[in-house]
């Protein structure tokens, strides 16, 4: 899409910030314990100072309220540099869910802290192996004192160990059939157990158990969860586009540089055609991702079909871009020393998060009425 002036400025700012402050090698540093943290704290603080952690937070709560196109521009740059931050968890998923919450006190307490990176929050909506956000086994039980308790287990909770606040989906048992609601659980709450399960992309992730854990309802029902998921998927699509773009740029560089049979391997038509095809796929994935983000910002009726479409497309394209990247780098592509593999791992994990391409393709078909 053609960016307006504000969006161009934001894109430039994000590009500069991530080029200066993010480095794919940080993935190894965190994985190998050279950095003693689940994420890149220096980068996260820099993002906070630049306002990016509050990109979706309303101005009244100290955020930029930039909208999802802006959040996507940041994510694309983060994808390019494999930024190891809780950006999607905290600045997108949690900020959107809290923004939709029906509880002013909760919003006033958490949104400003998320906006300036004093606190991290995340969403816990998955159980088991697959993304089925609308049918949780986790139960919310109302106590006699008017409070609520949660009982259940969650998987694939990104950044849980670092989070000050977890937004947990649960069935409130009111039998109204309107689906799960979100509940706020604070770090250190009674009965909350966090088992870290770092993923192949070396990001912080956990399985959590909730046993009579006190929780506070967001009070907005399923719409808050759906808004959060929609924003998260759209922004992940943009991150995946950034990953695809970066892997492809590196691969293209290698096609020029590497020589075999007395010529650059990029002069072989078999590789040229695959690269050319991939370049079209990447441009399409990018165009669709930003079109979907824009549709959300404008609250277009088509947005509910466009977002899963964008996520499915970006996930598939990023995966192919990474796989072609490895293949076209030959043996080099298989080494840990080389960055391509890091992109491949992140593409796989981000592609699965909040619904992989099969889930999203099916969601698209539903939204289209078939």
């Amino acid at each position: 899409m053609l960016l307006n002036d504000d969006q161009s400025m934001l894109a430039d700012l994000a590009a500069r910030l991530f080029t200066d402050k993010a480095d794919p090698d940080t993935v190894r540093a965190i994985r190998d314990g050279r950095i003693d943290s689940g994420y890149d704290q220096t980068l996260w603080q820099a993002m906070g100072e630049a306002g990016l952690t509050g990109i979706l937070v309303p101005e009244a709560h100290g955020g930029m309220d930039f909208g999802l196109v802006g959040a996507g521009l940041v994510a694309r740059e983060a994808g390019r540099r494999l930024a190891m931050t809780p950006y999607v968890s905290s600045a997108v998923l949690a900020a959107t869910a809290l923004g939709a919450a029906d509880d002013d006190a909760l919003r006033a307490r958490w949104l400003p802290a998320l906006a300036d990176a004093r606190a991290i929050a995340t969403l816990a909506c998955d159980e088991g192996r697959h993304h089925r956000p609308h049918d949780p086994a986790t139960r919310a039980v109302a106590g006699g004192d008017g409070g609520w308790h949660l009982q259940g287990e969650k998987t694939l909770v990104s950044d849980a160990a670092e989070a000050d606040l977890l937004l947990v989906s649960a069935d409130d048992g009111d039998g109204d059939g309107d689906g799960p609601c979100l509940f706020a659980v604070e770090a250190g709450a009674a009965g909350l157990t966090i088992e870290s399960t770092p993923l192949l992309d070396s990001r912080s992730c956990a399985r959590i158990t909730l046993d009579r854990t006190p929780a506070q309802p967001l009070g907005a029902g399923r719409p808050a969860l759906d808004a959060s998921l929609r924003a998260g998927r759209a922004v992940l699509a943009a991150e995946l586009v950034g990953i695809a773009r970066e892997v492809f740029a590196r691969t293209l560089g290698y096609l020029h540089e590497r020589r075999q049979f007395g010529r650059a391997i990029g002069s072989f038509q078999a590789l040229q055609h695959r690269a050319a095809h991939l370049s079209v796929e990447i441009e399409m994935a990018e165009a669709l991702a930003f079109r979907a983000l824009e549709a959300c910002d404008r609250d277009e009726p088509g947005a509910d079909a466009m977002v899963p479409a964008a996520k499915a497309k970006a996930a598939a394209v990023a995966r192919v871009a990474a796989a072609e990247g490895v293949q076209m780098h030959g043996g080099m592509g298989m080494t840990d020393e080389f960055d391509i593999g890091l992109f491949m791992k992140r593409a796989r994990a981000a592609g699965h998060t909040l619904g992989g391409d099969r889930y999203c393709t099916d969601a698209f078909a539903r939204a289209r009425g078939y």
Partner: protein
Amino acid sequence: MAELEAWRMDVRDWLAANCPDAMREPVRSADDHVWGGRRWVFSSEAQRLWLERMAAKGWTAPEWPVEYGGAGLSPEAHAVLREEMARIGARTPVSNFGFWMLGPALLKFGSEAQKRRHLPAIARGEIRWCQGYSEPGAGSDLASLQTRAEAHDDHFVVNGRKIWTSYADRADCMFCLVRTDPDARKQAGISFLLLDMESEGVSTRPIQLISGESPFCETFFDDVSVPQENLVGELNQGWTIAKYLLTHERENIGGEPPGLLKGRDLGAMALAAIGADAEGRIDEPSLRHDIAGLEIDAMAFRALVDDVRARAEAGQGVGARSAMLKYYGTELNKRRYDLMMDVMGAEALEWEGERTHGGQYAREWLRSKGNSIEGGTSEIMLDIVAAHVLELPRG
């Protein structure tokens, strides 16, 4: 903005008053497409009237200048016209190679006299053009073409043979590429000529396609005399025009499918053809998944086309990106027709009869296979993307 909205209302009113009801029916068969030309026989009075009315407004070629038979519309105003036509399902009143290809080339490279003579006749649907590029020995390697045009005092003498010339037997005139300097480097000795198909020495032989139709021909030139004034641009500079025109052709081929699938949703077709399960979804999960996958790609493709258009309007140029669009758009179209065949099952295999309007499913499916060949093959498009977009080294 307000101006555009006022324009929209004018267009809407005019269309409501002037578009015959029959011209708002979906296109069902090849007879519904109006190609125009000296020998054109309208299949209904409504067809004739619709063309006459649209041509009088200059809306058959909306962006061409008024003095050349167009309406001089801006791209935005044209978009409004297109949207309003689509809204009521109005058919395109006439179209042929004159609109898609020759017109834009003449506007850019033609002399004033050529523009005044040829463009209004195209816009009114009076002259039907065909494209004489390919030859038996010159397909993808178009610049190796051999049809000769020898320059005499005030005319050229053309000898040689073209092939795959779409509708050569039904067209009035041809724009073609001929070799005017056999000694120059391939691309440097080519000129762009206009010739009348009724000239002495021109003959055509139809070639039947796998779809059963014979839209294209072999075209022979035997000492055909072509007046000097029919040379477009400079002598031996035809390659530049040819390339410009190919870009236009590619943008058109990459567009929405014509025919049966125009404006139709495969998902809805499948629901009707296959039936719904208890949840109201296509009762065939693997087909549903494939249709959704195709529609996602189609949506992404449209988003890219819109971006490329917006960039072009902002003066950033389309250039070699048209090869990207031609490549993906035609491959997508082939996939769409493959799925349509799956959706329609046995009915789609019928080759004749009323039910399928004479085997339209099968015939259009087969015809779609040519999309990735005509106007430059997919492989050539990928070559162009590799060389000019990705700037990879030449093989």
